[in-house]
């Protein structure tokens, strides 16, 4: 367990706090307030990402800490995309995924900047990681929707299929990059 007593840590814990609050208000059916707090969590995680990028002097996608931090910020746009284009009104699972992603960032991974070894300094490294991570989050959403289908009377099957349709080409792109 590594608690981060830094400005970066402050942003990360702030983002986690907002995500928790958003989850709580979503459970209490305050949808608009919940979405607003979720957005604040997104802003905090983007701030953490920008701060990290400036601090280390490279695009923050070069180790697990940075990749997970990036994913924590990515979850909100993915939710918006799902709501707007895939008509999945349920974003509670996204917030849960966001919290799960940010937990190791805040408490497990070391924030110590690391240089990449020569073998990983390819121009395709960042797009490869980015596309794969995006695919994993989308596929995780599809998996959770499919599990929800098992325990619910609502029809989540189509939504799960839509998410898989979004994620599968991303996995193929990651394979090629």
């Amino acid at each position: 367990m590594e608690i981060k007593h830094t400005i970066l840590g402050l942003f990360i814990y702030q983002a986690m706090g907002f995500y928790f609050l958003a989850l709580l208000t979503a459970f209490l059916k305050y949808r608009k307030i919940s979405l607003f707090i979720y957005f604040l969590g997104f802003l905090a995680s983007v701030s953490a990402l920008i701060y990290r990028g400036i601090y280390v002097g490279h695009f923050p996608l070069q180790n697990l800490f940075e990749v997970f931090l990036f994913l924590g910020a990515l979850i909100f746009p993915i939710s918006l995309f799902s709501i707007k284009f895939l008509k999945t009104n349920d974003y509670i699972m996204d917030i849960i995924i966001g919290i799960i992603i940010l937990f190791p960032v805040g408490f497990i991974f070391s924030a110590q900047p690391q240089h990449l070894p020569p073998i990983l300094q390819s121009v395709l490294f960042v797009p490869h990681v980015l596309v794969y991570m995006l695919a994993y989050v989308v596929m995780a959403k599809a998996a959770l929707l499919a599990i929800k289908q098992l325990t619910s009377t609502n029809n989540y099957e189509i939504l799960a299929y839509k998410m898989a349709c979004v994620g599968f080409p991303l996995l193929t792109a990651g394979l090629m990059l």
Partner: protein
Amino acid sequence: MKKPVYNLTLFLFPFLAGLCVYTSFLGAERAEDFFTSQPLVVFWVLSIILATISLFKFIKLRKAHLLLIHVGTILIIFGSMVASEKGHELVAHITKKVKPVQGQMVIYVGQSSNQLYDRSKNMSYKLPFEIHLKDFEIENYPSCNKQVKDYISKVEIIKDGRVVKKADIEVNHPLHYADFHFYQHSYDDKQRKYTVFNVVSDNGLYIVFTGFGAMFLGIVWYFWFYELRKS
């Protein structure tokens, strides 16, 4: 004809998935040996034949996106076969020119070599040109002297006694010359007097790339612009 093709395809896909799971526990080298073994060559040939017959027999597969996925898959399998050891032997048999699949070159600073050594087969080959190693450098990160940023081999290609190309070979920046890729592989870590290149033939490589491109286009088209819109 349609039903046997359909049934055989239904059998081949889970079989291939099973093989992939099995070989993932073998490690890269043994997996490569396994996938290029004779029974598997039969399997790949059968897959190409089935995929080609399917294109003629199943009208649905002639939709552009499915066609791209199908043709892409055929190209990937075919390109991989061309790139394999047996593929090289077949090409050598037809063209009467022996071309190694891969090998390693050890070159000392200030010296030239055209010797390629294949450790797995314990055989040497002579390239039709020489590589002269002008210099070998190691760059470290300024903030951390112990951590290596890059390995750079400065080389010249010499053919018929004259320099035809100059290049810096770095990790992730291989040199491509005469249908071979030269990758920075290793070096003399004590005195830095020599460098080691991994040399790989590019036979079939661009067929595989084209196949992956076609398959990716087909998959994006099918899932994002067909299935998502439909559902």
